[in-house]
Structures are given as structure tokens and as C-alpha cells.
């Protein structure tokens, strides 16, 4: 007993002393450990480990490590969720935009097609009107007077020019084969000019016409008979 009387207090003193001598952790250390545990937690989430696998659950001595690991895992999860959500939102937005663009493009295409159709229709109408109006007129031998029968044709051409203010015409003067090449060029010019003058009296701006003479150089028909000559003595109207 006697020895115990000394030993026990000595043991107590040693124990307490040893306890008292273990230095407490500093705040810096705790922070570093918490950060390390946090990083581990992040890595654990990235590696696909469950939240329950926190290795520090049993380390009751260092609760900050457990907490740090949980924080890391939770943060990683939150980040991932946020990123997923954002990607989803972006994808949706992109899809929406593409859909909207397509709609707009379809609409524009439809409008363009409609416009083209309208233009084609207009062009067809113009062409049809031109075909209907631009009839060849004829002249007597060595004459450039507008014939009575051709006045209605010229009126038709004037009406056409008024209906289509952008239209421009070339008036061609032609002759039959009788007579010299050069005199017939001058005569063709006179015939084109006669048609021009008549159209001017019908109220069409003469600046919308050009005249050209082909004399007897471009006959429609080459037989030496009146039926052929009368076809060749003509004024033609060509769109420019």
C-alpha cells in the first residue's frame, strides 16, 4: 500500500503531465486539415463515391475533417448540378433559337417565292402584252408613210408603252430587195423615223425608242415576187 501511496499520485502526475504537455492544434493547422478534407471530398464526389463513405466519420477527435470532407463533396455536387442545369438551359435556348430561326427563314422563303411568282407573273404579263402589242407594220414600195391599216397596231404599241412605263423599244426599218443597198439603208431609217414620229403623236416619250435601219440586209423572205417584197418592207419593234 505504501508504495501505492506514491505510485498512484506519481502515475496521475505523469499522466496529467503528459496530457498537459501534448500541444494543442493551432488554427492554421485546423484550417489546412479542413481544406485537405474538403479537397478529398471534392475528389470523392468526382470519383463517384457516395456521401456516406466519408472516411472521417470515425475520427471523432477531428470533427473539422469530417465537416470539411462533407463540405467538399456537397460543393462539388452543387457545382455539377449547377453546370448541368446551365447546360440544359443553354441547349434548350439554342434549340428554341434554331426553331425560331427556321420559322423566320421559312417565312422569308415563302415571301420570296411569292414575290418571285408575282414578278414572274408580271414578266409573263409584260411579255404577253409585248407579244400582243409589238406587231410588225408594213410600207409601200419606196415609201415611208404609215399605212391606214397600221395605225391601230401603232396605237396598240403606244398603249403598251403607257401600261409599262419602264419598257424601251428599238424600231427597226427594213426594205425589199429592189433598190440599192445604201439607198435602202437610208429608206429603212426613214421608215423607222416615221414610226417613231407617229408614236410620239400618240403621246409616248420618244426618248424611250431607239431607231435602227437594216435596209435590205435582213429580209424575211428572199423570193423575187411582190408577196415576198411586201413582207420585207416593214417596221419591227423589239424590246431593249
Amino acid at each position, binding site marked *: 500500500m505504501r508504495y501505492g501511496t506514491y505510485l498512484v499520485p506519481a502515475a496521475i502526475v505523469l499522466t496529467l503531465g503528459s496530457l498537459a504537455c501534448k500541444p494543442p492544434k493551432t488554427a492554421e493547422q485546423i484550417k489546412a486539415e479542413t481544406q485537405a478534407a474538403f479537397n478529398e471530398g471534392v475528389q470523392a464526389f468526382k470519383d463517384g463515391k457516395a456521401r456516406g463513405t466519408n472516411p472521417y466519420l470515425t475520427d471523432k477527435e477531428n470533427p473539422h475533417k469530417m465537416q470539411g470532407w462533407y463540405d467538399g463533396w456537397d460543393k462539388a455536387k452543387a457545382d455539377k448540378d449547377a453546370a448541368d442545369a446551365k447546360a440544359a438551359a443553354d441547349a434548350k435556348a439554342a434549340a428554341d433559337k434554331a426553331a425560331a430561326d427556321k420559322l423566320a427563314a421559312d417565312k422569308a422563303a415563302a415571301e420570296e417565292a411569292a414575290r418571285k411568282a408575282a414578278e414572274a407573273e408580271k414578266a409573263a404579263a409584260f411579255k404577253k402584252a409585248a407579244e400582243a402589242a409589238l406587231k410588225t407594220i408594213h410600207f409601200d414600195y*419606196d415609201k415611208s408613210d404609215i399605212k391606214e391599216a397600221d395605225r391601230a397596231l401603232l396605237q396598240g404599241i403606244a398603249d403598251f408603252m403607257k401600261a409599262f412605263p419602264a419598257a424601251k423599244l428599238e424600231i427597226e426599218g427594213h426594205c425589199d430587195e*429592189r433598190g*440599192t443597198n445604201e439607198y435602202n*439603208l*437610208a429608206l429603212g431609217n*426613214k421608215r423607222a423615223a416615221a414610226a417613231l414620229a407617229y408614236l410620239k403623236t400618240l403621246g409616248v416619250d420618244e426618248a424611250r425608242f431607239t431607231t435602227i435601219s437594216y435596209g435590205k440586209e*435582213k429580209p424575211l423572205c428572199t423570193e423575187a415576187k411582190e408577196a415576198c417584197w411586201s413582207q420585207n418592207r416593214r417596221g419591227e419593234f423589239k424590246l431593249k
Partner: protein
Amino acid sequence: MTRSFIRTFLCVLAATGLWAQQTEVVLTATSSAKLVLGMTQPKASGLDDATIAAEFTAVLKRDLDETGLIAMLQERLPGDAAAVKAWKEAGAQWLLNVRMTRAANGDLQMEASALDTAAEKGVFTRTYNANKIVPLRYLAHYLADDLVGRLTGEKGVASSRIVFVRQTSPGVKEIFQVDRDGAGLVQLTRHGSLTLSPTVAGDGRLAYVTYKGGAPEIWGQRRKDGPHERFYPTAGAGGMLSSPVWSPDGKRLAFVQGDRRGNSDIMTLDLATGRVRRLTDGNGINTEPTWNPNGNQLAFTSDREGGPQVYLMQDDGSNLRRLTGEGQYNASPAWSPNGAMVAYVSRFEGKFDLFVYKLGEGKAYQITTGVSTSESPAWSPDERRLVFTSNRFGSSQLFTTDLSGRQIVRLAEFAGCQSPRWIRGR
């Protein structure tokens, strides 16, 4: 006795000529005033007789026939001095000897001499040197021209050429050149459009009208053998343009410009300055100008008094007077190279015939007659013949005629020809 013998002989000659060239000579007539030229077989080295016969003797014979001045007499008689009497008996007034030598490099030398069989002395001698690219037929042309020159004082036109317009496809006409005997066709323009009214200056420069840009433009050569360039209008459109004609000095072009009121006027363009001057008064049609040889007057066609008639004026537009009297339609005047005559066409019963107005006499003579039409007369440089177009064998082809209208020859068988011009070849 001798004379009647020659005459009989010439009738036979004419008949055989007609027979041999039936497709070529439409109508021929010989006059006893022709000089009879005896010709011996040419002596040649380096050439065979068949080539000489086809490309020299036959060509020379045709050239001389068409002059209407010399008739060739071919007999199998020797050509030496001893045989001169025999040639004279046979009817030859001159005796022609030709000697040809073809050198190893292809160059050809030809010596030609002619002897008067009555006086028995030389009347002509000349040596010709031709580089190998010159065809043999050209030597025949040169010799024919020089023989005519010796006889008349003015060189012949056998070596001359015709420039003309020909349709190459519908709506496309181009300018061509052919030798006076119908050989050697050359295309001078390739615009692929209507190309009309050629005119050739004394030095060979060409001018014409082309529709290549849509509207007519006057194109031509500023210098001999130079490129073809646009003369008028320099910018924009010039209205109706036709009938460019070089002045005799080659410095100006007369041409025709039509306005939008239907008038067409004779203009002149000074090539050096580009200055354009209007000579007629904007009253109806004025066209087809042709210069007199001095270049101070022009003849032209105008409808100012109704139908087309030929008028004359100074080159400033003054002193206007009407030339043609009879006929409803007189056009296409061509002033002769010596200035004393104006050829033109006149319409009668729906077809055209050639006429020549003699300015000294104040009278017109009809050259062609018949049911076919004859158009676009142009003078030969020696003023002895006219080239023209006619449809007597169908489509418009080139013919020449003497001034009597009795010797009409088809120049070539090209169809669709118009506006011939006759120019010297050398």
C-alpha cells in the same frame, strides 16, 4: 487580103473562145481593132509544160481577152527571128517570147520580149523576178498589164482586185477580196455581224460599216496594213451610218449619217483632226457619195425631188445640181477614175440596168439590158470596165462589163455578193 484573112480568123477565134468558156463569157464580141499577139510556147527550165499551160498561158490568154485590146494567137511555129515572116503570115502583129527559169530556192525569173512582125524590131522587153510565194498566174497578170501599158500608154488591170461584201450566214456579212480573174479569195473582216460598204483608199487602207456593236459604226485602217479600228462615232451612238468613201487623197472619208427624223445627210470626216462636216441640208434622203478624182466634188443620190436621183455638189455642199434626167429611180453613182463619166443604175420595168453619164457630152448611155437586174457599178482603175452585181444566174454574183455592154464576164461564182470595189493590185 491580109485584113480579111485576119477578120475571118478573129471570127473563128471568137467562136472558139465562146465555146471554150461557155460558163464564163455571157456575151462576147470582138473588134477587128484588136492587136493580134502571136505567142510561142514559153521556154522553161525547172517548170513542166502542163503547169505553164494551165497557170501561165491560159491565164495570160484570158487576161488579154478581157482587155478587149489584144487577141492571143497560139500557133506551133518557132519563135526565132527566122520564123517572124511565118507569124506575120499567120496574122500576128506582135510576137511574144517568154523564157522562165525556176531557181533551186524556188524563186522565178521570167524574161518576156515582143517583136513587131511587120517592122521586125523589138517593141517590148522586160524581166520579172518573183519570189517563190508569188503564184505563177501573177506573172501572167503582170505581163498582161505591161503589154497593155506598152500598147495604150496605161497599164492594164489584170493584176487588180475586187473587194466586196458577201453573206457568210443569215444576218452575217463580211468583206472579202478576190483577184480580178476570180482566183485568190481572201476574207478581210471577221466581225460576225452585218459588215457593209467597203471602201479602199489609194494606198490600200480599208474602211467599212459594221453592226458588230448592235448599231452601225464606221471602222477602218488609219495606216497601211494597220489594225481595223473604229472611226466614227468616237463615243455613243451615231444613228444610221452608211456608205463611207475615201477621198482620192485618202485623208477624208465621205459618209452618210441618218437622224431620228428620217433624214440622211452626206458628211465628211477628216481623219487627222476627227472633224465632221455636214454637206447636205437635212432634207430627205442623201446617200451614196462618190468623189471626183480631184476630191473637190461629190456625186450622190437624193430623193429631195421625189424619187431617187443623182446630184453633184462641191465638197463644201455648194453648187448643187441634178445630174440624171430620165427615169424614176436613178441611184448608186460611181465617178470614173479620170473624172469624165459617172456610172449609175436606173430602174426600168422593175429591174435595174447600168448607165454611164458622160459629163462632157451631157448624155447618159445604157450599158446593160435584159430581164435580170444589174446593180452597184464600180469602175476598173483603167476606166475600161465596170464591175457590178447581177442576179442573171440566180443569186447576186459579181460580173464585169466593158462600156459597150457587149462583153459581160462573170468574175466568180460566189453567191450573195454586193457592193464590189475595184482596186489596183500592185
